[in-house]
């Protein structure tokens, strides 16, 4: 469904990602892991169109979207839930969700999706009219997720959903992520918390300083990484 082919992405003059290739099959959960600064967020931003690659291509459903603007990519079915939540803090929970469906015109579909999201995250329904900025960290994460889902994506890009969340909430979030995948949405998940990510993902890419160091089925990669750690005595 998604094929990234040898992209270089720069932050200004600094190369953040070099010759990166990855692919995601429809229906999968693929995870992109690595240490801080490895280039994971940059990769997601490039897929979303927030940053444009200098080389290489990004193919979505066999269409080259490498130079397409972000809002057009949203219309094609790609949604990014950015790192750090980024809700519209001055707007209410409900308005945030409404905006998530900004590019859509199907009233019925929007209504159904909203109901689904309130079922996934009951706390959002409770706080429907509250200003998003007053929500707790975990609630904001749910709102960001919900808002993204309102866009009716086929491919969901998740950037560190566990960041800054208490362990109890973590489990909930990951349950929801599984449920979202079960409903047919393909997920590309970026995480520092490797263990949780590997548990739900089928395939994994490990990044280091802007490149893919290793990839494979998540179980295999876990074993490999453990061996390496044992070998190097980390």
């Amino acid at each position: 469904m998604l094929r990234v082919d040898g992209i270089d992405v720069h932050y200004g003059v600094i190369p953040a990602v070099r010759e990166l290739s990855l692919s995601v099959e429809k229906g999968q959960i693929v995870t992109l892991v690595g240490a801080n600064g490895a280039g994971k967020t940059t990769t997601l931003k490039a897929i979303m169109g927030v940053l444009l690659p200098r080389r290489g291509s990004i193919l979505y459903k066999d269409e080259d979207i490498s130079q397409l603007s972000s809002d057009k990519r949203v219309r094609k079915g790609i949604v990014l839930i950015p790192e750090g939540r980024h809700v519209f803090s001055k707007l209410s929970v409900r308005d945030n969700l409404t905006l998530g469906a900004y590019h859509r015109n199907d009233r019925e579909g929007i209504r159904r999706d909203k109901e689904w999201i309130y079922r996934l995250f009951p706390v959002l329904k409770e706080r429907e009219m509250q200003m998003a900025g007053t929500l707790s960290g975990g609630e904001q994460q749910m709102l960001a997720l919900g808002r993204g889902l309102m866009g009716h994506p086929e491919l969901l890009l998740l950037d560190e959903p566990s960041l800054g969340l208490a362990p109890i909430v973590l489990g909930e979030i990951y349950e929801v992520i599984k449920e979202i995948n079960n409903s047919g949405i393909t997920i590309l998940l970026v995480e520092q918390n490797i263990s949780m990510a590997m548990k739900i993902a089928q395939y994994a890419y490990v990044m280091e300083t802007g490149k893919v160091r290793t990839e494979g089925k998540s179980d295999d990669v876990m074993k490999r990484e453990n061996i390496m750690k044992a070998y190097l005595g980390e």
Partner: protein
Amino acid sequence: MFPAEYYFQQLFNGIVFGSMYALLALGMTVIYGILRLIHFAHGALITIGGFIFYVFFTVFGFPFIAVMGIVIALGGLLGVVLDVIAYRKVVGGPEVSMLITSLGFYIFIENLMKLIATPQPYPFKPPMFLDRLFSEWLITFRTVDLFIVITSVAIMLLFNLFVKKTKIGLAMVATAESGETARMVGININRIISLAFIIASAIAAITGFMWGSKYGQISYDMGFTAGVKAFVAIVIGGVGSIPGAMLGGMILGMLEMFSVAFLPPGYAGYRDGIVFFVLILILIIRPSGILGEKEVK
């Protein structure tokens, strides 16, 4: 000291001028909210609005409502032109560069007006039905004063509804908070910015008509002082806050009128200078304004 009527009169004047400043501040704050840019050329739209009205109403004799429509349309159009030509290219650069370019465009337009219209001010009269004088009650006023206050309130209410209830209005607030996040939700921020310019400029153009009616004349530089005062209004009310802008405008109007009222007669010319004092005072005491967010420094 003075009879009670005098104070009521000044209060009323304060409300009228305050309404105009509030509208101007609203327009400027909308653009500032989205671009983080002081749109100096905003003042030029006031001048242009005044002149458009003059040309179509006084010279060509079109009916009032049609002329107002033309003012709004042309004002909005010019706003988009400014957006695309002037700001689109410099957005993202150093702040000072944006300010200078913005200034350059104001000067350009002002002198273009000077060239076309000559430095002479033109006497400006609103339509007959707005020009009637009433002196019966406590205060003296013209119908145009009522028009100004009512229209201002109406526009502010409409705008408020717009940003709270419509999808595009919400998109504007979202874009103002974070352009990047807005893009991720599928909002085309260039279109939103253009829309902001259209709305702000149309409002400014209408204010030009009001300004001309109040002062009885229009001239090529009438937008300058108005623009500076709009900015002061924003600072008073809180940069980045829409209700703050409107509040600031009202307060400024009142302050101006009251200072003129209480100053000895020969000092009425200091009116514009008072504005500056207020600005400095606010910047010392509370730079973020009454309703504004704390300016991080």
